[in-house]
């Protein structure tokens, strides 16, 4: 799909490969900086760190493809870790699907608010961020909720064949499932149409509102699943546990090359973007940069990546 767009504009063609080029360059640079980097151990650790980020970014990518943004993913994931930790003793194995279902419902409610009340998506999800954080604080009593019996979520923290972290495999599966479902159904063209030109899509009979609500729903579900991964790793849930994943997730999406203006991009790109962001994060200390620069780096790459991938022809006035 990207090729016919790329044929017309050179910059797009370059940005199409940007995440892969960045990924290869980063791995090469880190290997040069530290010969120990390209070992099974550190790569496994990097993949394990990347897993929740990949899932979060993949879900939110769908919303961005529709031309919106979901700023509530991290807060929703935090709330989900609290709910999971609270529900595990009573529900056991059922707690995981229950949390994902609740997160999906919350996502769908935000989507409905966006579509029905005609409120811009960033303000709905910014409001959602605030509300969900408050709920998480109240439900958890503003403290960490320990998980005593983690037997039902421990599988996510195991290693497949002794090497591959299960969470990374599941993150890959989530991305693959979303990608396949989009390709074999008309959903992909619906989402792209909504993102490229909402009014045209509407006139052509695309169920724009439904597509948007669906995107928010998937985004919520992914936040829920990312929360399960976090709980399986940290043996606890916390009201702010995933909050610092918002910027990396947004960075992953835009670094992957998904245009913030909508339509152009894919979940695979966000997978690559999430790996780039994770490598930057683990790479900074390796090359001797204090981790305080991490935030500055996120800020800069968000602005630069958005500027590079933006479809400038589409919007005459940028607010």
């Amino acid at each position, binding site marked *: 799909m990207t090729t016919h767009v790329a044929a017309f504009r050179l910059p797009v063609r370059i940005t199409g490969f940007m995440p892969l080029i960045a990924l290869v360059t980063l791995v090469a640079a880190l290997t040069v900086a530290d010969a120990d980097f390209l070992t099974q151990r550190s790569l496994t650790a990097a993949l394990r760190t990347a897993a929740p980020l990949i899932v979060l970014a993949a879900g939110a990518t769908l919303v961005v493809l529709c031309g919106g943004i979901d700023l509530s993913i991290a807060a929703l994931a935090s709330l989900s870790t609290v709910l999971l930790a609270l529900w595990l003793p009573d529900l056991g194995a059922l707690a995981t699907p229950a949390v994902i279902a609740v997160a999906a419902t919350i996502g769908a409610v935000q989507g409905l608010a*966006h579509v029905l009340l005609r409120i*811009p998506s960033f303000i709905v999800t910014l409001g959602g961020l605030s509300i969900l954080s408050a709920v998480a604080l109240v439900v958890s009593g503003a403290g960490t909720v320990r998980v005593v019996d983690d037997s039902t979520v421990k599988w996510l923290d195991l290693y497949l064949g002794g090497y591959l972290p299960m969470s990374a495999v599941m993150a890959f599966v989530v991305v693959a499932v979303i990608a396949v479902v989009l390709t074999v159904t008309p959903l992909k063209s619906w989402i792209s149409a909504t993102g490229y030109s909402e009014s045209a899509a509407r006139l052509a009979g695309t169920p724009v509102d439904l597509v948007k609500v669906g995107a928010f729903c998937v985004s919520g579900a992914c936040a829920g699943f990312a929360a399960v991964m976090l709980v399986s790793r940290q043996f606890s849930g916390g009201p702010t546990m995933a909050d610092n994943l918002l910027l990396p997730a947004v960075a992953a999406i835009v670094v992957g090359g998904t245009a913030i203006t909508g339509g152009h991009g894919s979940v695979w790109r966000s997978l690559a973007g999430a790996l780039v962001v994770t490598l930057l994060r683990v790479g900074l200390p390796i090359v001797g940069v204090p981790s305080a620069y991490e*935030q500055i780096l996120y800020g800069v790459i968000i602005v630069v990546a958005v500027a590079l991938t933006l479809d400038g022809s589409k919007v005459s006035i940028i607010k």
Partner: protein
Amino acid sequence: MTLTSAVATAPRRQSRRGASFRDAGPPVALVVIFGIFAALSPQFRSVDNVQNIVDAAAVLAVVTSGITFVLMMGSIDLSAAGVMGASALTVSLLVANNRNDNDYGLLGIGAAVLLGCAFGCLSGLALVLLKVPSFMATLGVSAIGLGVATLMFAGVQPNITDTMLESWAIERFLGFSYLAWIAAACILVGWLIQRYTRLGRYAFAIGGAEEVLTLSGVRVKPYKVAVFTLAGAFYGLGGVMVTSQLGAGLVQAGDGYDFSAITAAVVGGTLLTGGRGGILHSAVGVLLVMVLTNGLVQVGVSPYWQGGVEGLIVVAAVAAAVIPQRRRNQVVK
């Protein structure tokens, strides 16, 4: 003061039917909500508590004054938290403190405000030169600000010993803290800028009809950058005021202020689509938010709900503002 001015400006918009009624909404809501809480809780209606509300509203009022100009243009600014963090650390390291021998007093405060200007300018330049939508540009700048603050924090909390800056939060004049008076001065300055300078009038015009303004030969880009820079100055001062309250420079000085300020501005009647509202609307909005959050705590609601209440009212206020135009704008991103 705010009430009478809001009414006084209303006749200027007589051409828009119902405009004056809409302008009167937030002040009426403020009086009603104040009345309800005063009836429910004896502590709420005490003089001490009213002083508390005004003092607590000071920082939010300054931040909201800044963000109002950005919202009037139809843009959005999420950078307040980062800019305030950076300016809080800057001022605490430049006035007398326990980390170094600096004692620049007012100069240090000026430097922190200038740093805020620089961050705002950065957001504006990213918007007009790189064409990055403002919510993304300011999200990035906020992260940069937090990073800069973390670098300056360097693991050791700078406690301020500057008597002047400390006195801002403690000393009182006519019953209110100096911070409250500074906030009132900021609102006055903001109102003068909005009413009497080209910058303020163009900010309105950019929000109302940017295309028309461009076609009539106005170069809007410099004004956009200038508005973001002005907003940055207010956030910088906000960071200084938080430092005065806490007695120390913290990276998290501006936590939550970005969203609270948007809430206050929107509740006061400034539309996110731009072109409507203003500083005085926002001042009423700030008091509304503060009365609501203070009142809820006084009647026994957990303070943890504060963010949730703000989230609900911002969504409700935006939805209410959009309803009259539902048919007109088909596309909402």
